[in-house]
């Protein structure tokens, strides 16, 4: 009953002519970073895929065994560098779960605001690069890309005035956050999200029932519900295939239960369903940021005194698996602490690693142009895939 001969090189037995092996190489313009897909082609249709990854491997897990709890959060943001705020959160929450460290209410609200702003910024980059892949750097796609980047810059300005950096922040710390919002920041943040809320309407009218976009997105890269759970894909991909699962609702962390938002679910499972899920998530995240800003409590931003030395934070023996709903799905950090200032073992569950693992199962049978559309809708970030 169990079929063991399942290879990642899924091959169709086409009777067609001889095959052309072409690789969408590591430096291919639409590879979203360093990823190599070795495609075997029958004319335009793909019959076999073998994915080669690991070009951006820095061995974060070995590095985390040599850096202390005070140092590693600002390195953790380098795993998923497009959504740095959410990737640091997983590591910090795992350490807090083991050490049973209480995080003040204000810090929890700040974490929610930054995570949701980061989700909007990451989705903006996703929409831009996806349209550029499908529309071409010298065509309509570049227009959508430049609009999205223009809006993303506004959010990066917010993060820059809060933390000082634009991409990798080191904003979190075991026990709370390292920075508090400067005065006037909340008002600027409200103006920015109002502007972005209006601009998203513009992108939708540029793409929504546009025949060219629909032709490229509908019915392409369908992921069945059963395959989705079997491979372990998460986030917008899972919700695009009809599974109503969102960590912020199923296992609320960092006081997400105080906010009301609804979780978009589509049953199509194709690129368009994932696009619809993310477009609704734009607006939900903006609603959450508004609610959090309105009800931001005063008080301390960290339950532990400011960081004075490198081995200041010691976590007692124990282990924990903390999960965060990143823009690409469930980002998890399985941490084993042995009482010293450095963790004994840290396993990083990157959302993009599992999301990418579904590609060899769904690409065969599509055309080359579809590979680019599917890759874009899966939205992998290779810092998280290769760790």
């Amino acid at each position, binding site marked *: *009953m*169990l*079929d063991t001969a399942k290879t990642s090189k899924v091959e169709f037995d086409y009777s067609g002519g001889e095959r052309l092996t072409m690789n969408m190489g590591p430096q291919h313009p639409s590879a979203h970073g360093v990823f190599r897909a070795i495609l075997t082609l029958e004319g335009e249709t793909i019959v076999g895929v073998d994915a080669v990854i690991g070009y951006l491997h820095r061995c974060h897990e070995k590095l985390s065994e040599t850096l202390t709890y005070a*140092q*590693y959060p*600002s*390195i953790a943001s380098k795993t998923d560098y497009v959504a740095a705020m959410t990737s640091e959160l997983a590591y910090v929450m795992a350490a807090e779960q083991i050490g049973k460290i209480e995080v003040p209410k204000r810090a929890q609200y700040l974490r929610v605001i930054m995570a949701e702003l980061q989700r909007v910024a990451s989705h903006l980059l996703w929409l831009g690069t996806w349209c550029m892949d499908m529309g071409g750097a010298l065509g*309509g796609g570049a*227009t959508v890309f430049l*609009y999205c980047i*223009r809006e993303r*810059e506004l959010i990066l300005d917010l993060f*820059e*005035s*809060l*933390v*000082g*950096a634009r991409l*990798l922040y*080191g904003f979190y*710390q075991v026990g*709370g956050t*390292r*920075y*508090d919002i*400067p005065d006037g920041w909340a008002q600027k943040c409200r103006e920015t999200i109002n502007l972005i809320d209006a601009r998203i309407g*513009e992108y939708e*009218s*540029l793409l929504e*029932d*546009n*025949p060219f976009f*629909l*032709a490229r997105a*509908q*019915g392409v890269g369908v992921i069945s*519900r059963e*395959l989705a759970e079997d491979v372990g894909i998460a986030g917008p991909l899972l919700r695009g295939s*009809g*599974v*109503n699962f969102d960590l912020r609702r199923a296992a609320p962390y960092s006081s997400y239960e105080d906010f009301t938002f609804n*979780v*978009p*679910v*589509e*049953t*199509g499972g194709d690129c*368009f369903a994932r696009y619809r899920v993310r477009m609704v998530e734009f607006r939900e995240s903006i609603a959450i940021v508004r609610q959090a800003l309105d009800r931001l409590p005063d*008080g*301390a*931003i*960290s*339950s532990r*005194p*400011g*960081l*004075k*030395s*490198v081995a200041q934070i010691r976590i007692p023996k124990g282990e924990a698996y903390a999960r965060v709903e990143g823009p690409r799905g469930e980002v998890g950090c399985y941490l084993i602490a042995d009482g010293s200032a450095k963790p004994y073992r840290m396993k990083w569950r990157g959302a993009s690693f599992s999301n990418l693992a579904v590609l060899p*199962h769904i690409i065969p049978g599509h055309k080359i142009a579809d590979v680019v559309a599917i890759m874009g809708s899966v939205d992998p970030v290779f810092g998280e895939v290769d760790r």
Partner: protein
Amino acid sequence: MSNPVLPSSPTAKRPHGPEGPAPLRSSPTRVVGPLSVIRAVTKALWVTFLNLFRKPVTVHYPDEERKYPDRYRGLLALVYEKDTGEEACIGCRLCEYVCPPAVIKVEMLKTEKRNYAKSFSLELYACEFCELCVQVCPTDAIVMMKSFDLATADRREMLLDKDRLHAIGLQHQQSWATGNLLRAMQGPPKMARAEEVHAKPAGSEA
């Protein structure tokens, strides 16, 4: 070789019927009729046309400088003490231990009044601008500047030594963050700490 269908779970009762939880809202596949093509095409063209009259957002970098926020994390620099005018750094090597990529190397020079840094080297090409060194510095000696333009043709010039760091300190404008300010922001707010002191009996030192 089709994908083997694994037996679905007979006993585990599915709370939401065979296909899983009813989705909140699922958009039907959109049929592209001729009328909707015309409407969609004109809507898309209208958006780009509208944008024709918006002001471009480009900043002409070398000519006009973008305004950096107060907490900008730019180049690292060493500063002199305000009152005595001496070097602020006492060579305590706290920044050397806390730096994740270990780019800072300091040697202490002991003298009777206070200590100094005999040598202080910082490999700027490997620095990650995470501002941990600024945070742990007890005497606010190392700070970050509000500028980043130190492009050099040779990597060896990026290995900054003590007087290069001091020169940068005088050249650019210093950003807001210094060790004491950052630690004060993270610690529990003033009034909470004040009660903490009262609560403890005066004799026992924390």
